[in-house]
């Protein structure tokens, strides 16, 4: 399926991980520290061209996509959500050009994402999920992170690991190959053979040495770091401490490089000063600085709207506006850096919500939801079976498209990597969507 034009892991011998490489690197006298690291650091300022990138934006809490992409003609929707339903006139129309008809709108808080639709660069995949839905935030998030629904013991030779860790271990095995920003330590990054970078923000990824900002204090801090580095340079041990030396060398250099990237950032596009805006600005900063990061993982919380969710305005609308402003800026920035055609942004959540509003004028946990996929190379349009009155007559819409069908397509057609190595579990339902 992935013949000779995609990144193949067969070049990286099975069982040889970055750690083994480091081990041998350390054993070879004199070849300490700078072994594979040269390539994690930016070669030159400016986005590496033609590198394929994926930005995953996770909306924690369970985003109500039924209201994000409101149906325009399904009476069940209006009947079951008397207070919070968006009226057909309130949404942004997804009908573009003559003869185009969709039964859904886009939320009015999302004008920038709507313009990606108009440009034919937004795919909306309807009723995405996985078999045997789990309505716990914790467990459902894990399933999305692992991208394995059943048991790892049935997948011979695959260690329990997050899908980004598996991707990074095979195809981007450097600390900058995959980066998580502001998402804690997502399970997506756990396990596997690589050590991807996970930071709360780029600004926080530095070695703190300075108690106060007085100039003499700064001089002392520099002196201290200088001494720590000279002890490190002099040290030549074997075994674990030699590996620690490599990691320390990398820590100093990488932290410096990231701080340099932050300091030199052009601010050519203004990102909104919101949580997600700042995180996507960090994404842009790494790209502009020339890091060869392939997968970015970030997101915001607040989507667990059990009460007072609102409709065209209100709590949920404000969250969507934040998503729209931040993603809109990233799209504009990617175009500025001339990498939009090589970038895909996906907007996910752990599950959708119930078909009906509850007594607190919010919605409870559901199952399937609509996933957004944006990118210069994306074939815009609605994918998957259309949402129907029958779907909404149930407690919640059931899944039609396995989320891994979308991920697999992105890894295969966009990242040009062997998706079977990243998503080893056979799917119960497969879709060839053609988004990319």
């Amino acid at each position, binding site marked *: 399926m992935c013949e000779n034009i995609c990144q193949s892991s067969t070049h990286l011998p099975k069982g040889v991980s970055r750690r083994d490489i480091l081990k041998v690197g350390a054993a070879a006298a004199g070849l300490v520290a700078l072994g594979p690291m040269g390539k994690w650091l930016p070669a030159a300022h400016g986005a590496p061209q033609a590198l394929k990138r994926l930005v995953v934006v996770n909306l924690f809490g369970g985003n109500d996509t039924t209201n994000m992409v409101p149906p325009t003609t399904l009476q069940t929707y209006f009947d079951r959500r008397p207070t919070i339903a968006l009226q057909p006139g309130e949404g942004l129309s997804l009908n573009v050009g003559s003869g185009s008809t969709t039964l859904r709108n886009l939320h009015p808080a999302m004008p920038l994402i709507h313009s990606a639709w108009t440009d034919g660069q937004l795919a909306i995949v309807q009723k995405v999920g996985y078999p045997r839905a789990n309505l716990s935030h*914790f467990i459902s998030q894990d399933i999305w992170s692992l991208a394995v629904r059943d048991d790892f013991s049935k997948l011979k030779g695959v260690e329990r690991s997050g899908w980004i860790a598996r991707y990074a271990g095979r195809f981007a095995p450097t600390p900058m190959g995959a980066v998580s920003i502001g998402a804690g330590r997502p399970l997506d990054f756990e396990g596997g053979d690589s050590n991807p970078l996970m930071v709360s923000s780029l600004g926080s990824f530095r070695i703190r040495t300075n108690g106060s900002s007085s100039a003499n204090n700064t001089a*002392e801090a520099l002196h*201290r770091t200088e001494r720590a580095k000279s*002890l490190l340079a002099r040290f030549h041990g074997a075994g674990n401490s030699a590996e620690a030396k490599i990691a320390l060398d*990398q820590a100093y250099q990488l932290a410096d490089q990231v701080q340099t990237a932050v300091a030199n950032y052009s601010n050519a596009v203004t990102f909104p000063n919101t949580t997600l805006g700042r995180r996507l600005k960090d994404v842009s900063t790494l790209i502009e600085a020339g890091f060869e990061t392939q997968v970015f993982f970030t997101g915001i919380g607040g989507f667990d709207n059990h009460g007072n969710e609102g409709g065209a305005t209100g709590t949920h609308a404000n969250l969507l506006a934040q998503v729209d402003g931040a993603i809109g800026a990233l799209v504009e920035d990617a175009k500025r850096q001339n990498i939009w055609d090589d970038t895909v942004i996906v907007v996910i959540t752990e599950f959708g919500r119930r078909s009906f509003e509850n007594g607190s004028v919010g919605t409870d946990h559901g199952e399937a939801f609509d996933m957004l996929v944006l990118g210069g190379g994306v074939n815009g349009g609605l994918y998957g079976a259309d949402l129907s009155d029958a779907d909404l007559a149930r407690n919640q819409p059931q899944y039609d498209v396995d989320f891994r069908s979308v991920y697999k397509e992105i890894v295969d057609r966009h990242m*040009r990597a062997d998706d079977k190595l990243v998503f080893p579990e056979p799917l119960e339902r497969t879709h060839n969507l053609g988004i990319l």
Partner: protein
Amino acid sequence: MTHLPTRVRPDSRPVRAIILTSALFLAPVALAQEAEPPEIYRFQVELAPVCLDGAFPLALNGGTTTGNATLVTDTKGKLTGQVTLDGLPYALTGSVKATKKGLSLSLTGRNDKKNRVTLKGVLEGSKFTGSSTGKGAVAAGKGTFELDVSTAGPQIATVVAQVTQGRGSSLKGTASVQVCGPAVEGKASGSRNRKGHLSVKISGFKFTGNGSADGRRFDLKWSASGFGAKTKGESLRITEESVSLAPSTLAVDSDAAAHLLKRTHFGVSAGKRAELAAKGLSQFVDDMVAIPTTETQVEIDAFPELVNVSDPANAIGKYPSSADIARWWLHLMTYSDTPFQEVQALFWHDHFAVNSEVLGSTELYWMVDYVNLYRRNGTGNYRDLLLAMSRDPAMLDYLDGLRSTRTAPNENFAREFWELFTLGADNGYTQEEIVESSRAFTGYRTRTDDATGLTYVSFDTGRHDATAKTILGVTIPGQNVTDDYEAVVDITLDNRPAAEFITKKIFETFCYTNPDETLVAELAALLRDNDWDLAHFWRTLFKSEAFFSARSRGAFVKNPVEYGIGFTRTTGLLLRVDEMDDLLTNLGQLPTRPPTVDGWPSGTEWLSAQALVDRTNLAWEAITDLSRHQTEGIAVQDILPPENERTAGAVIDTCVDLLDVKLVEGDREDLLDYLNTDRQSNGSVVESPFDGTNQTHLDERVRGLLHILAQHPTYQVR
């Protein structure tokens, strides 16, 4: 899926870089994986009768002027040190050298250009005696001196050579030599033909032995030079280091003590070092393994972490949040005077992993009971522990035991019970047997206590599968009175790999990885043949040759808890438990929240650029929490020598010793320079001798020194 043919091949530079590197190193990796484990030879040779490392009384001109000279010897026999004479500090430099007349000493003390004194003499008995030439304030003109070295031990070189057999009979590898101070690293080589040969070379030090080799035993005529000495001997018998469970006969020196404390006490402390020296190894380990049976003061002090103002009167401390429980345990780890209790509990928590995040607000108190199960019984009986673990409400919830019923048995716990907890993956059981045992693991359910609102677990015969089950060749008869958990535990323990599996896991957490089969069998027998008594097992382990062997030293990377709790305990620079919670969460190891049922990563998985940045910042948080430390009466000098002995050198030696950092030549000078200079914002360097009574020096420079040491590669290792 197929590709659109118009797409161009993506730039794969990052991947190519790795391919190149791995291709280069592919062969050695493959070799290293197939090769025999290295042979380790550890031996000691006496280089000289005294080791000039320490403080020695110096008397000039028959005692007219006296002082205490602190001296350190490097590999080449160069001496550095300090002495105060008549109130003036003198920097000492010189050398010690083996001559025909015996050990000769040459030392020059400099205060400034005007004041200096030169000493030349030889060792006679327990004193260096000879002539002095002074200029300036002290001992001017010609005179005599005596340096009393009666407190100095013999200068013994402890050599650890780690070699693997290469072509033919040649041996090659690394060596470390330790002589009264930090170990220095170098190369080892040898051969095993009829004429056995082993040599060790380290800058300034050389050991050569020639003789005969019989397998992994050498009988050598040897010579050694270095550290100012030159000596030789005959019939040095060197045998590959024994790693049995027999009691170690090595003296518990400073390194051995640090090794034990780092593995069992979250690091070194002066108090525990003294306790170990006073009690001796055997008593110390016995006491360490004996977990307190009554409530300890630290438990009383930690309890408020679990209490919330909204707790019902009849359930005080029963409604903790998930964070409360983590902080309660961090409190115990930080303040306990019996930290092995927490260290071994953390091992069991990692092994029988449960994540408190799955528990609801009326269930979270289960996690406290879960932690206490291992805190209190982790050195008890293994069979009892397994049984209690299986019925533990937190575990029942985490691995779906509470949802495993007669009509719908859940395989989750049944699978992990064998795969992760007791036997190992695919080790003697089948999928069918997992289905059978999942039927045995049925019957528990939750109920609500009406008085407190708390959820509790009880056995419900109606949910229990009352039919017979056959596992591992044994049939559990059908019954509907009790659960079948005890039966499954007993059948499992009767199975051969059960003792091997758990004892190897303990060994690989506390000693070193990949013990050979003989040792694994010995370990298993130790537990199985003593009626599963864990206390006996732990005691034997921590007194054994294997534990103190060279391959055990530094065999592990510290995990974040060991690093964070260890740094704050050793330095006394404590963090608030909620700060520690945040920092450890960031580092990926918050106790009570392992990422998966398989527990936390281990070994070099903890080493990444990210982790090292976060570690260094954790130490910095502790170092800069000055105002709170002042409020709580914590001062950095609490770990330092008394004021009158608190020279820059002594401060460095104390901190290096406590953090067990291995310095190399030149490091100490660097650190002295750090303590004795001030850097100005304009870049100028101002001499500013360290004053051990100056609180600003202590709060800035000593804390700064600790930050430097916390970043040392050897501090990442235990």
